[in-house]
């Protein structure tokens, strides 16, 4: 026996099954990211004054990624519309764009991760702090054995606080240089990974989870674009529904980014 309303709308709800399903799923996603955002808000609000960093992320890259996702949302919609009017070739084109845009997004995101990963804050023996991007570690560099040197491109500051607001005029005008630090001068060396502070922690967690969603969505769209598109030949209406449902998911992922961008990059 066939399950009813897989393609047609049920008259009293006006929806087909998968559409209701995806909205329910999105409702739960709202609560998932809601939980994370409420963690973000609480942790940020409870920081001591000056404890929340500003300007740690590259706004230019963030903007580009925002536009990429916005574009991909649009190509997704057009892909669905193309299916709806039964223009299969255009569908293929638009969704190819979606996939490429998504992959570019992920590429930029991994570049940003990498950038944070090689960014070090080093507490020096003299109480100052060296902060910058890793250029190279000498072959024999080993903190435990106290051998070798590490070269950073960055600057030296008196106090950790100076590193918090990179938007401040002082930080903007600071000169970055290459500096080579012997292991013997290093008290503690830590990169800007998740454990660095609350900001990096929430940054990596939120964007990481979001990137996983992008990745999953891309897989689905790729499947529907490639092998899954066979269904178009036999049941175009059902195929169009699938494109709509996956599109709704994709738009939701875009929606999350619309909040992640200002929350992490701009404030």
């Amino acid at each position: 026996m066939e399950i009813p309303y897989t393609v047609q709308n049920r008259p009293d709800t006006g929806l087909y099954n998968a559409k209701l399903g995806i909205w329910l799923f999105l409702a739960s996603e709202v609560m998932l990211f809601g939980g994370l955002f409420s963690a973000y808000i609480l942790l940020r609000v409870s920081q001591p004054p000056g404890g929340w960093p500003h300007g740690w992320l590259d706004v230019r890259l963030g903007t580009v990624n925002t536009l990429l996702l916005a574009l991909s949302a649009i190509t997704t919609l057009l892909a669905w519309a193309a299916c709806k009017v039964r223009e299969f070739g255009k569908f293929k084109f638009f969704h190819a764009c979606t996939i490429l845009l998504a992959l570019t997004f992920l590429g930029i995101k991994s570049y940003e991760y990498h950038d944070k990963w090689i960014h070090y804050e080093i507490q020096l023996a003299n109480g100052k702090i060296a902060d910058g991007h890793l250029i190279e570690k000498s072959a024999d560099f080993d903190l435990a054995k106290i051998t070798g040197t590490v070269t950073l491109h960055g600057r030296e500051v008196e106090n950790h606080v100076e590193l918090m607001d990179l938007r401040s005029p002082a930080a903007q005008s600071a000169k970055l240089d290459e500096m080579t630090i012997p292991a013997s001068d290093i008290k503690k060396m830590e990169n800007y990974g998740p454990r660095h502070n609350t900001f990096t922690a929430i940054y990596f967690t939120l964007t990481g989870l979001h990137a996983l969603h992008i990745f999953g969505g891309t897989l689905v769209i790729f499947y529907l674009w490639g092998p899954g598109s066979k269904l178009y030949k036999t049941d175009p209406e059902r195929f169009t529904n699938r494109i709509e449902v996956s599109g709704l998911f994709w738009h939701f992922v875009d929606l999350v980014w619309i909040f992640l961008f200002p929350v992490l990059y701009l404030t």
Partner: protein
Amino acid sequence: MSEQPVSLNSYIRLCGVVFVVVLCTTASMIATSYAHIGSSNDWTLKVALILAIAVVNAFLVAGYLMHLLSEKKLVYTVLIFTVFFFIGLVGLTMWAMNDFPPGTASH
């Protein structure tokens, strides 16, 4: 979306408009972020403004791209409850974290 699209071109036009607006909102968010609003180390006002613009942006995506504006009542109902509980989660947690017995201190 229940109604049949009239033609692909009408969609392309809609998308063009949406994209231009998204461009504008994004630009204005960034502008707000760099503008000198409020005192330099109090971000509250700025955050509020920026988030307000983000909400506009989100409304566009949800309303037009996800066709929420023409969606069925059932979907609204589900989403209204979801948003309500989300506000409850954030709001009550915030409230609880700010209502300790007098004399409580964090150290």
